[in-house]
C-alpha cells in the first residue's frame, strides 16, 4: 500500500535547499554581536557554542546532554548544501565554532586555509574511531577533521517493479529497461565520477576523453531518464514517481522504514564514499568549547544517541557496539565488505576540473 498523495515531505536537503537562498541573508544577522556576554567557563571562554550543521542530523537529546555535561549551550544553525556552507565561510567566519562539511569540502576548506588544526590532546575519544577512518586520503592523520557520519551512493529501488536486484549502474545510466522510471542525481561531480566508475575507471583523475564518453552515455540515456533530482530521490521513490534512483544509503534507509517494498544496493562496479566531518573553522570564537564538543560527539554513548535517530552509518566503533542489531547488521546502512572494497572517496581536483564537470552536465541537460 503506497501512501495517498499529500504534500511533499521535506528531507535532509531538499526543502531547505530551496529556502536557503531566501534565508541566507537573514539567519546570521545577530550571530555574535557585541551584545550580552554570557557566563564564562573554566577555560576562559563564554559557555556557548555555535554549531553549523545539516538538518535532521543530531539525536533528540544530543545538544541538551552536552549542556548537562559541560554547561555549554549550543546554538545550532542549519545549512542545506556544502556550497551554502562554503559560501557562508569564504568571506570570513561569521562566528561558527564547529562546522560539518563533507570530505571533498574538507579539502576545499583546507586548500582555502579556512580550517583550524585540531589539538588531538583535547580529543581523547578519537581512539573510538573505526580503523578505516583514522587516516583518510582527504585529511591524512585527521589533522583538521573528525568523522561524524559516512555515506555511500548506490541505487534505491522498488522491489516489485524490478526484474531481480539492479546491482549495476547500467540500469540507471546505460539501459532502456526501466525507461521513464529512472532518477539520476543532478550533482555534476557525482554524475560524471560515477559514470567513469561504471566504465571501469577510478572516480579520481578522469581523463578528458572519458568525460566525453560519460557525457555521450548520459545523452543517449536521457530519453529514459525521468528526472535529474537534487537529493530528494528517496521521496520520489516513496511517492511512486520513479522506481529506481541514484541516492545515498542513509536517505533510502529512512524511507525503507515507511515502505517495505523499497530497497538499496551498492552496484558491483563500486561507488563513491562520502564522509561528513566535524571541523573547527579559522576564527572560531570558542575553540576550546569546540574541541570539547567534538570529543563529546565521539563518545560511544553520545554517538549511539545520534545514530539511533538519523540512521546514517557511523565511523565510531564504541557507538557501533552500543547499537541494536537492526542497525549494525543492516546491509543498507553497512553494505558488505567486498562491495565497500570497490568504493572510494572522490577528491577535489581544482577549480578548472569543477568548471569542466559543470559544463559537461550543462551540455547533458541541454542536449
Amino acid at each position, binding site marked *: 500500500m*503506497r501512501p*495517498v*498523495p*499529500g*504534500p*511533499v515531505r521535506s528531507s535532509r536537503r531538499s*526543502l531547505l535547499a*530551496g*529556502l536557503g537562498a*531566501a534565508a541566507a541573508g537573514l539567519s546570521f544577522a545577530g550571530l555574535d554581536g557585541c551584545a550580552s556576554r554570557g557566563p564564562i567557563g573554566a577555560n576562559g571562554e563564554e559557555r556557548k557554542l555555535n554549531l553549523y550543521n545539516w538538518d535532521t542530523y543530531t539525536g533528540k537529546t544530543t545538544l541538551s546532554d552536552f549542556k548537562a555535561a559541560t554547561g555549554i549551550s549550543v546554538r545550532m544553525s542549519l545549512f542545506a*548544501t556544502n*556550497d*551554502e556552507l*562554503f*559560501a557562508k565561510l*569564504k*568571506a570570513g567566519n561569521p562566528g561558527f565554532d564547529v562546522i560539518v562539511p563533507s570530505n571533498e569540502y574538507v579539502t*576545499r576548506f583546507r*586548500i*582555502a586555509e*579556512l580550517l583550524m588544526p585540531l589539538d588531538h590532546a583535547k580529543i581523547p575519544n578519537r581512539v573510538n574511531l573505526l580503523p578505516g577512518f583514522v587516516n583518510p586520503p582527504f585529511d591524512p592523520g585527521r589533522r583538521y577533521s573528525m568523522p561524524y557520519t559516512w555515506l555511500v551512493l548506490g541505487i534505491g529501488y522498488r522491489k516489485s517493479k524490478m526484474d531481480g536486484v539492479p546491482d549495476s549502474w547500467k540500469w540507471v545510466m546505460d539501459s532502456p529497461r526501466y525507461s*521513464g522510471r529512472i532518477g539520476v542525481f543532478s*550533482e*555534476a*561531480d557525482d554524475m560524471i565520477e560515477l559514470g567513469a566508475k561504471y566504465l571501469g575507471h577510478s572516480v579520481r583523475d578522469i581523463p578528458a576523453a572519458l568525460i566525453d564518453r560519460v557525457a555521450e552515455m548520459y545523452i543517449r540515456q*536521457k530519453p529514459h*531518464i*525521468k*528526472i*535529474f533530482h*537534487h537529493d530528494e530521490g528517496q521521496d520520489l521513490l516513496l*511517492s*511512486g*514517481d520513479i522506481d529506481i534512483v541514484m541516492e545515498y544509503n542513509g536517505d533510502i534507509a529512512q524511507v525503507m522504514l515507511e515502505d517495505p517494498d523499497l530497497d538499496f544496493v551498492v552496484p558491483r562496479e563500486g561507488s563513491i564514499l562520502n564522509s561528513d566531518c566535524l571541523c573547527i573553522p579559522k576564527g572560531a570564537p570558542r575553540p576550546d568549547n569546540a574541541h570539547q564538543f567534538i570529543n563529546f560527539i565521539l563518545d560511544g554513548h553520545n554517538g549511539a544517541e545520534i545514530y539511533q535517530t538519523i540512521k546514517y552509518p557511523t565511523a565510531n566503533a564504541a557507538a557501533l557496539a552500543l547499537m541494536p542489531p537492526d542497525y549494525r547488521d543492516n546491509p543498507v546502512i553497512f553494505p558488505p565488505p567486498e562491495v565497500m572494497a570497490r568504493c572510494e572517496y572522490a577528491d577535489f581536483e581544482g*577549480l578548472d576540473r*569543477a*568548471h569542466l*564537470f*559543470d*559544463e559537461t552536465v*550543462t*551540455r547533458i*541537460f*541541454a*542536449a
Partner: protein
Amino acid sequence: MDESWTKAKAVFAILAIPPVFWLLAFFLIPLGVIWGYSFGENKSLTEIAVNGTFSNYVHAIKPLYLGIILKSFWFAAVTTVLCLIVGFPVAIAITFATEKSKAWLLLLIMLPFWTNLLIRTYALMAVLRTEGYINFTLAFFWNGLSGLTGLLGHPLGAFQPLELLHNNFAVVFGLVYVQLPFMVLPLYAALDRLDRSLLEASLDLGAGHLTTFRRVVVPLATPGIVSGVLVTLIPSIGAYLTPDLLGGPSSQMIANVIERQFKTANDWPFGAALSFLLMYMTFLAIAVQAIVSRNRRARD
C-alpha cells in the same frame, strides 16, 4: 501641484533619502559588484581578481549557452502567450463586474501572493505528480466507469496515470500559474480606464462584437498589453525555481546554469557574465520595442 512640491524642496529631499539610500545600498552597489565580477578571474577558491578580462563573455556566447538562453526565451514566450489568452477574458470579466464583486475578484487575483512561491510550487507538485490529486481524481472516475462497463461485460482495463510532472509541460504550466496575475493586473488597469461609450458607438454603428474587440478594445488596451507582456516575459526568462522543481531531464533554463556557477562550479565571474548577458539582451529588446512603437506613433 507642480509649484507646491518645488517650493517644498527640503521636505522632498528628506523624504527621498531613505529610498535613494535603499536603491544605492541594496541594489545598485551590489549590482555593480556583480558587474565587476563579470570582468574578473578566479585566483583561488576564495579570491576573484577583477582585471578587465572579457574571457567570461567570450565563454558565455558559446553556442551551448546561447542555445540555453534561446530555449529559456522560448519557454517564456509560450508562457506569455498563454497568459495573454487566459488573462484577457479574466481582465474583461473583472472590468465589467459590479463594483462590489470587482473588489473580491481583484482580491482573488492577488491572493496567491500571500503564499511563498516555493510553497505554491511544492503544492503544484502534489497536484501534478503521478500519484497526485489530478491522477487520483481521474483514477476514481475511471474505476467507477470501468465498474459500470464491467457490469455490461466490458471493463475498461487498468487506469494509466497521466505524466504531468517533471517535463516541459509542467514547467510552462507552473510559469503560467505564477505569472498570470502579472498579466491580468496591467490588462485590467488599461481596460478599466476604457471609455464604455466608444464600445456602444462601435456596436451602434454596425460593428459586430468581434470587430469591436479587434478594432476598438485591443488598440485601446495596447499599453496594458505591452506592460503585461513585459512583466510576464522578462521574469519568465530568468525563472529558476519552476524549471528546477517541476522540470524534467530537458527543462534546464539559463537561471539554473547561472545558479550552479555561484554554487557547485564556484565560478562567480562566469555566472556574473551570464547574468549580465541576459540583462543586456533584455535591455536591447526593450529598447528596440520602444523605438518601434515610437516610430509607429510618429507615422500615425
